């Protein structure tokens, strides 16, 4: 692999779509007990061959309990000038409670990393901040954050917000996932939900911001696949205010979750009826009420149907959600042991960290695996 091909700066963002094959792994402790990052690291490392060193990353929930009600931003910078540009903008909208450079462990495996800072922020009065005249009753703090993050990522030169939720954070970069994990010292963090990603982009360009998980608000998405419906999904979310700036499938999927689950208030348990809608022949065999619901969701949200191969793990403060495409064109294995739920591209990762699970199963295409936090620390 030639290092010369690796782009680490935001200015190097490819303006085309990067298709990729990948490894995904997620671990949730449903009782909300926090555990450190070693387990997720060991698991994703088992699937080394599913990555090619062009991207790896982790999302961790529950890692910032001291600021659990404040916005936690992780921001990549090309240089200090970009940092001061971004911080000036941040200060206009937020009170910065604390900020620091994210501690890292330099290693030969990580080449030329960008500057990465984290910020704990409190939003000022959003109505006075927002540049457009929006109706007060239809606009939430979350809407502001979505708008802010999308705009900053599109406009601020040399800066990129990779994580923007509460009590969670995303650590990612160019390299094999185990090297990225060590670089970010994730063994020193404790969280109740971890997801991770090892990337095998089929195009040689990778950059730190473009690695996965992709994050927005509390959402983090890791995805293995190349969706054939991208053009349709991208135009669908664009017409509802989400401009895809990275041209990646994962970005479009993240926006679909935010749009459907948060804004349209679709229950998690029926999200699969939109994202991986049941086949018409299956719908026709459903009982009357279910049939009408399934049919209506399919007609209504055809733009949100994700087609082509995918297996995704979506992280959120309250749950972990995993879904395969409807004809299962990508691998996904799930397992449970006590209060732990594991979802992985390969069983090897699960067995590495949990040698004797209570149950291991291969979720049917289009049928979600949902793990919810029963209580939090």
């Amino acid at each position, binding site marked *: 692999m030639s290092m010369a091909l690796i782009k680490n700066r935001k200015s190097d963002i490819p303006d*085309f*779509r*990067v*298709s*990729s*094959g990948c490894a995904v792994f997620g671990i949730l402790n449903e009782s909300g007990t926090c555990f450190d990052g070693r387990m997720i690291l060991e698991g994703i490392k088992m699937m080394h061959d599913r990555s090619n060193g062009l991207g790896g990353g982790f999302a961790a929930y529950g890692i910032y309990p001291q600021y659990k009600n404040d916005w936690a931003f992780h921001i990549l910078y090309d240089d200090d000038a970009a940092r001061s540009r971004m911080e000036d903008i941040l200060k206009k909208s937020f009170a910065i409670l604390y900020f620091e450079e994210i501690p890292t462990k330099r290693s030969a495996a990580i080449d030329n990393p960008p500057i990465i800072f984290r910020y704990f922020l409190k939003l000022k009065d959003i109505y006075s901040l927002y540049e457009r005249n929006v109706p007060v009753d239809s606009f939430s703090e979350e809407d502001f954050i979505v708008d802010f993050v999308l705009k900053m990522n599109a406009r601020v030169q040399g800066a990129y917000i990779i994580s923007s939720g509460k009590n969670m954070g995303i650590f990612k970069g160019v390299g094999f996932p185990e090297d990225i994990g060590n670089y970010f010292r994730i063994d020193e963090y404790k969280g109740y939900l971890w997801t991770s990603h090892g990337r095998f982009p*089929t*195009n040689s360009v990778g950059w730190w911001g473009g690695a996965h998980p992709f994050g927005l608000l509390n959402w983090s998405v890791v995805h293995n*696949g*190349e*969706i*054939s*419906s*991208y*053009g*349709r999904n*991208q*135009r669908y979310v*664009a*017409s*509802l205010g989400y401009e895809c700036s990275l*041209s990646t499938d994962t970005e479009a999927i993240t926006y679909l979750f935010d749009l459907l689950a948060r804004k*349209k208030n*679709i*229950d998690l*348990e*029926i999200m699969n009826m939109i994202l991986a*809608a049941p*086949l*018409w*022949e299956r719908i026709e065999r459903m009982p009357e*009420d279910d049939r*009408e*619901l399934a049919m*209506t*969701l*399919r*007609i*209504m949200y*055809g*733009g949100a*149907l*994700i*087609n*082509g*191969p995918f297996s995704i793990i979506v992280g959120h403060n309250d749950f972990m959600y995993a879904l395969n495409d*409807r*004809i299962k*064109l990508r691998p996904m294995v799930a397992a449970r042991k006590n209060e732990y739920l594991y979802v992985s591209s390969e069983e090897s990762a699960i067995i590495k960290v949990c040698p004797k699970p209570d149950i291991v199963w291969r979720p049917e295409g289009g049928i979600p695996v949902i793990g919810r936090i029963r209580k939090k620390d």
Partner: protein
Amino acid sequence: MPLKLNQSEFVVERDLNKCISCEVCVRQCSNDVHEFDADDKTVLSECSKCIGCHRCESLCPTEAITIRKKEAEFKENSNWQPAHIKNIYRQADSGGVLLTGMGSDKPHTVYWDHILFNAAQVTNPSIDPLREPMEIKTFIGAKPESLEIEKIGDEFKLKTKLGPHLELSTPILISAMSYGSISLNACKSLASAAEAFGTFYNTGEGGMHKELARYAKNTIVQVASGRFGVDRQYLRSAAAVEIKIGQGAKPGIGGHLPGEKVTADISGTRMIPQGSDAISPAPHHDIYSIEDLAQLIFAIKEATDYLKPVGVKVSAVHNIAPIASGIVRAGADFVSIDGFRGGTGAAPQAIRDNVGIPIELALAAVDTRLREEGIRHKAAIIVAGSMRSSSDIIKAIALGADAVYIATAALIALGCHLCQKCYTGKCNWGIATQDPYLTKRLNPSIGTRKLSGLLRAWSLEIKEMLGGAGINAIESLRGNKEHLRGINLSETELSILGIKHAGQAW
């Protein structure tokens, strides 16, 4: 004065060694090209009357007849083409408007031929339609802003009901052709094929013949400026109603069915006196602006208890994007857009060949505009105006259409040879004629079989191409321009179509 000989478009060649003077050609030709000479015991042909429909050639039992194009013998001139010269002779003679039939045959750019479709390789598996489900079911209608779903225990209950929708087994409908412009046997073939295949045909503006009432649940009825055959029963019996504002072949003008064609049967269906001219005015006389259209849309919705989708058909003209936006905002559940290559039974040649824009550009412009305005979900888009193959259709869907209308292709399936003389009422194939001697040539059950065959073949091809692109549901292709690439197109054309040039990756 022009020589009559120069006006022959075709040469009728008869191989006298093969001709057995059976007179099939004499009986089959409604244009009286062939005549049996009793003295000579031979069949003679008058080439100047031949319109090139190839009926005699097709039916000659000994293959004695060949119809060939006759090259004009005018002195070569790049500016004054033979067609211009002949048309001037014809108009100098008649002093009238040049009439023509079917869609424009002029060599304008056909954008379908400059667009290439995608396929999946390695990073994304193609899907084999013979092994995996491949879904092309399509719905036509408006979608609400959002859905209210109630969760009661573990059960989810839908509280918002979807408005009326048409459910199609394939994204292909049969476009408007009136009884009058085509024969009842042709209408029956279209209607019964639509029923057999699980799609819809459109009555056109001529009303619904009583023998077609049994196909009502697969019928879209049209309300055009002449209001022929429109009554409460007509509106309520159909699956959907389409208000016809314009037609791709003749934007801006109305229609005229001459009194001699208004037979007893047609007079009953159109609800006009027998023998009277059926004139469709250029505009609807109650629609002089968009708010008038909104009133008509809601008058029809009231009359049909909001149980049927109500759509509006317009021809693709320069301002089609804002026009379509206005139509959607006026409450239409679907917008049918007819491109300028669209067919017709009769249109002034000057208009057919020079007015309007190609459907590909109109479709892309409308879809983009409706998305920008955030109203794309409020109405389905059906496009028409020359869908010649399944690949034209799949490209139309990827450009943003919900479904397509076919008409010329459907008639070709019934035997039409595109001689473009529909307006003469002498169609030798029994399609565009009311002459009982000619209409009986078209057997509706054979017509149904042929058109069903075409729908089946195109649907299979659509599934093959979908699967090849790694897609197994047609909704994932709709507006998915990433699967299209342009070839030999300018920056402006690519930007209007919203597609990249071939060779550009994601």
